[in-house]
């Protein structure tokens, strides 16, 4: 089974930005490498992305003073990786959408792309914009919070996907896809090895 992975534009930007600060290791970089390699600790991966996100990526990199040639190369590499990924999914052009209540139209576009592309996991640096609250009224359930109490894993259920769309922070997603840490129960369970799944199905002791 192929994990359909959507990385928000801010994750791609984060990756190239970290490099420009000489940071050779980052959560964003680990996730970008997973997208390029087409596999993670849980199995094969297909990148899901849209033309609009590719345009945004290129433009933002130029605004961050990356030479245009490099920004274009970044866009081309990401597009090539998605177009001929393990499932050969071309970048998406989402028609319609806009149903989900997000304050920021770009977040809505990213979310619509993830739903239309059948993504299992959408990774973002901007969990606040997807968490039900002042910036979003999307019907998502908080599955886990980070040590600071901020949601780092959300589940959005919709009729197009039996298991729903998981929205995770870069650090949470890196821990599952790269470091091999178990996600919270009910999160991308279908990709976990049987022993992980069995452990997740054990009744949990109350905290």
């Amino acid at each position, binding site marked *: 089974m192929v994990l359909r992975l959507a990385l928000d534009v801010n994750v791609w*930007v984060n990756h190239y930005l970290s490099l420009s600060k*000489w940071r050779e290791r980052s959560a964003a970089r680990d996730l970008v490498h997973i997208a390029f390699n087409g596999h993670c600790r849980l199995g094969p991966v297909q990148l899901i992305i849209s033309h609009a996100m590719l345009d945004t990526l290129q433009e933002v990199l130029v605004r961050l003073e990356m030479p245009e040639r490099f920004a274009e190369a970044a866009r081309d*590499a990401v597009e090539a990786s998605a177009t001929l990924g393990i499932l050969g999914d071309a970048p998406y052009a989402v028609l319609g959408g806009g149903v989900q209540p997000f304050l920021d139209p770009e977040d809505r576009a990213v979310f619509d792309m993830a739903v239309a592309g059948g993504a299992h996991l959408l990774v973002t640096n901007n969990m606040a914009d997807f968490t039900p609250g002042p910036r979003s009224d999307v019907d998502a359930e908080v599955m886990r919070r980070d040590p600071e109490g901020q949601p780092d894993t959300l589940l959005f259920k919709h009729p197009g996907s039996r298991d729903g769309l998981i929205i995770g922070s870069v650090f949470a997603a890196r821990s599952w896809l790269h470091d091999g840490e178990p996600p919270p129960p009910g999160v991308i369970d279908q990709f976990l090895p049987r022993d992980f799944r069995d452990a997740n199905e054990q009744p949990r002791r109350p905290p």
Partner: protein
Amino acid sequence: MAGTTVSFIADPKLAARIKEIARSDGVTQSQAAARASALGAMLSPAARRTLRFVVEEGGEEAQRQLEVALAKAIAQVGNSVLERRLLARDRGAGAAGDGGGEEDDTRRAVAAVAEYRRAIAAIPSEPVSDVETASPGGGAD
């Protein structure tokens, strides 16, 4: 483009594809052919022979597999070249290394994308009634 002129006889399908690439990439057919052959010329003799075998015997499915594998490899290598160039560029220029942790990068990335969105939203759009549209008989009204 500086270089040596080389002529060769190409399979009609290949020639048509070169013409198509030249049109879509905005280069001459000669440049398109030179760029395409650069990839094959990088291969070892055994790999070149295998490629020849795939092209002659593999059919469309094998060629599609090869296309996927090559595109994926090129995307990966392209990204790693870009990563190296970015690291080298900024070290050389002595720029960018402004400290801060990984969380600062994530915040800055979110802010950069949000700033771009605001800039785009601020561009006034042309009223629809002022946009020229094609008439059924051809040409614009």
